């Protein structure tokens, strides 16, 4: 063995120790590569990476959150979380699962930040409240702002889990009373991978993390920092109800005849056409279903501001301040009606005011016509 100069075992060693053959190991690499959408030569990259790297330390911070991102992560079926945390990463800090508490927990994080400076991956779940000197979220007496600042400094890369970390999610919805702020507005000079969703799909989370630790570099990101592999398509573009949409066959109200036939949910508010996520392709919880398949429209949970983008049950934009029943069309129709009324009034006004001139023109015309008779 040549790669054992480091004390920590590599993935390859782990797998061999667990009784897998080299052939099985290569199969595994092929699968991972395919899963990540790599070309054939990617397999060699994967196997190389798995053979030579020890487990990457990971610090997972929790701020203003509901912990559903952690919950979603542990739902991942491939790879499975027990395998990730035992074999792939060293999850040195996460309040949800770690054995240590209080000072011992803080010490574990400090140790990683010091010993693996520049090496560890920082995962952030939750947004960061910036009002009131950060007092709206404190851990161990320190504000989230403060903790994030310190932890980001030595991180090799940062992953923002879920809509909370990526765009503030529900607590940042109007009027955002705590100043909930997404992490990319607070961390400067570090690569940040945004994995939005409320929560993101477990397999997507595991996939992104495994990509990062396996290749030691960031997956290809789109314009706003999301991994292209999972966020380049609208839910609508991969929705199996799409033929109904194109055919103009819609559910009119929940549980009506059309709903029982699985028609498109567009008219009952589906936000699939404006939502970028992999739900239609990967589906949830190991491919069992996804919101639309279970009869409810997409609420757009991976989109910025999805809480403030109007009701989940209407398609046409709502207008704040006009009441929940007013929407762009009602206002538009009213505006057009008002305009028409105004123009009619103007026509009458003009007629009255310019009667003389007008009559003169008309009379001239009549006179001229008479002359020709």
């Amino acid at each position, binding site marked *: 063995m040549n790669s054992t100069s480091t004390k920590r075992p590599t993935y390859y060693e782990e797998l061999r120790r667990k009784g897998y053959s080299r052939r099985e190991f290569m199969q595994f690499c092929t699968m991972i590569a395919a899963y990540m959408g790599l070309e054939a030569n990617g397999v060699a990259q994967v196997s190389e990476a798995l053979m030579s790297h020890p487990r990457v330390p990971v610090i997972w911070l929790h701020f203003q959150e509901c912990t559903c991102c952690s919950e979603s992560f542990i739902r991942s079926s491939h790879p499975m979380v027990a395998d990730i945390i035992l074999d792939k990463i060293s999850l040195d800090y996460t309040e949800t699962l770690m054995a240590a508490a209080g000072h011992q927990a803080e010490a574990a994080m400090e140790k990683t930040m010091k010993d693996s400076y520049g090496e560890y991956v920082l995962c952030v779940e939750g947004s960061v409240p910036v009002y009131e000197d950060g007092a709206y979220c404190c851990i161990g007496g*320190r504000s989230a702002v403060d903790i994030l600042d310190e932890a980001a400094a030595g991180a090799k890369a940062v992953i923002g889990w879920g809509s909370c970390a990526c765009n503030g999610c529900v607590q940042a919805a109007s009027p955002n009373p705590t100043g909930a702020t997404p992490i990319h507005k607070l961390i400067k000079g570090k690569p940040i991978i945004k994995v939005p969703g409320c929560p993101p799909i477990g397999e997507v989370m595991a996939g992104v993390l495994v990509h990062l630790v396996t290749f030691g570099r960031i997956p290809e990101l789109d314009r706003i920092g999301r991994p292209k592999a999972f966020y380049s398509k609208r839910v609508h573009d991969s929705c199996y109800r799409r033929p109904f949409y194109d055919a103009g066959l819609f559910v009119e109200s929940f549980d009506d005849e059309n*709903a029982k036939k699985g028609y498109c949910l567009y008219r009952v508010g589906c936000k699939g056409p404006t939502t970028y996520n992999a739900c239609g392709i990967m589906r949830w919880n190991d491919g069992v279903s996804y919101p639309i398949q279970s009869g409810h429209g997409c609420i757009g949970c991976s989109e910025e501001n999805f809480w403030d983008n109007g009701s989940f049950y209407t398609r046409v934009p709502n207008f704040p301040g006009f009441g929940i029943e007013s929407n762009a069309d009602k206002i538009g129709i009213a505006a057009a009606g008002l305009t028409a009324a105004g123009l009619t009034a103007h026509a009458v006004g003009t007629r009255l005011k310019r009667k003389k001139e007008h009559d003169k023109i008309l009379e001239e015309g009549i006179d001229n016509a008479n002359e020709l008779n």
Partner: protein
Amino acid sequence: MSTRIVVDPITRIEGHLRIEADIEDGKIKDAYSSGTMVRLLEKILLGRDPRDAWAFVGRACGVCTTVHSLASCRSVEDALDIVVPPNAELVRNIMFATQYMHDHTVHFYHLHALDWVDVVDALNADPKKTSELAQSISHWPKSSPGYFSDLQKRIKKFVESGQLGIFANGYWGHPAYKLPSEVNLIGLAHYLEALEWQKEIVKVHTIFGGKNPHPNYLVGGMACSIGLDDASAINAERLAYVGTLLQQGKEFIEQVYIPDLLAIASFYPEWTKIGGGLGNYLVYGDLPTNGYRDESSFKLPSGVILNKNLNEVLDADVRDNDEIQEFIHNSWYEYSTGDESGLHPWKGETNLKYTGPKPPYDHLNFDEKYSYLKTPRWKGHAMEVGPLARMLVGYARGREDFKEVVDSALSKLNVPATALFSTLGRTAARGLETQLIIQWAMEFYEQLLTNIRNGDTRMADTSKFDPKHWPDQAQGVGHMEAPRGALAHWIVIEDKKIKNYQMVVPSTWNASPRDANGKLSAYESSLVDTPVANEEQPLEILRTIHSFDPCMACAVH
């Protein structure tokens, strides 16, 4: 002289909880519980469409995911006089049961077990003996000597790597760990198995609600139509899938969770005398079998027990202005009616006002406000809510099904009923109630099939979905039993919009700061008198606090 210790973060819970305790002569003399993160959902909801509320409040918590969404739908349906079809009630009940099966099992293994199981000591176990022991308590198939020795090797390698990950800095070797190495190894094995198992049972939510965490709900019923002729609706395949998942869930809980629970509990008899706390229990009841309005049809009966008196069960009324009230004497809020007043949630207010120290701080000042949790009271009493409360109320109400599981466990552990008023009692009640829940889940499932067979495929009543059918003014309450205890949402609707929305959450009852009269809430009260062997390693505090299964995102919301 007492010393003040701080445990913050309390880990293996949901959210941000800080405990400070005064220790004197190796015992806790006084304890303070503080929730240190706030989002203010109750404010964010104002002015929004009541039909959307379930999604907002669902995000209160992704651990007890679904419960707030259900409470919210019920509150709106209550306000607008909507009755959901029987199938929707059954699907909601099945999802409820699934949530319990998941939440309670994950709590036991991943949040609580490491308080009792010494992972590092598992390396000293003899795999053969472990196998014999495992087979003696359960016929779960994965218990061969080879299985345990492979696991042991895997863990050994893991420990030798020097990267202990989530197990780093645990209180391994602490004198309060009492399990034989073999039981530790079983515990560790099942920790990993449960991690794999839990992702399966939630698929019931995925089928009916499209995803988990945060499955979808709908005011008026459920969105998952039954369409036996449609490939994607709830059809024969989907229903069979649910049946299989429930069956697999049942096997794991009956063959792994419950035997482990009883085995581990039997090594910690002293913990039936520690951590009892208040002795007042509140249950709203849940699992309707004849509609939400008919409480007599609930599988989980409602009731109030005061001072551990199992001979009398009182009734609670969530609509009564004088029964449930929230106080903010010690909470970082202000009331327009004055900070000493108590408000019934329909009139509740959520106006944030932080007065604590500017971070970073070493200690909070407990003579002043010290938490983002409000302090709920029932007729002025501090109440404990949760699995123990539910089991006690069912037991005290004389319900046969409750008596059977409770008495059988008590006799297996050879302890009297009073042993339930304790840290271990709380942990045990959680497992016992899971057993009941599984039985009922199977009943709900059969009933759903029967309804469909009889031609009833209704899943939602949308006749009042359109706001034009709503009154100008309405108010409602949606109460339920979340895994951690009694939960209710109060809503006031005006001009089709949310005028007021107040949530009083199980962990708010349990983890709240003391009230103006100095009366402690459940966490604080149950910590008092708990022995602490080593102030540097407050394992005992974790045990009692974890026995409540804290959820702080819920508690503060």
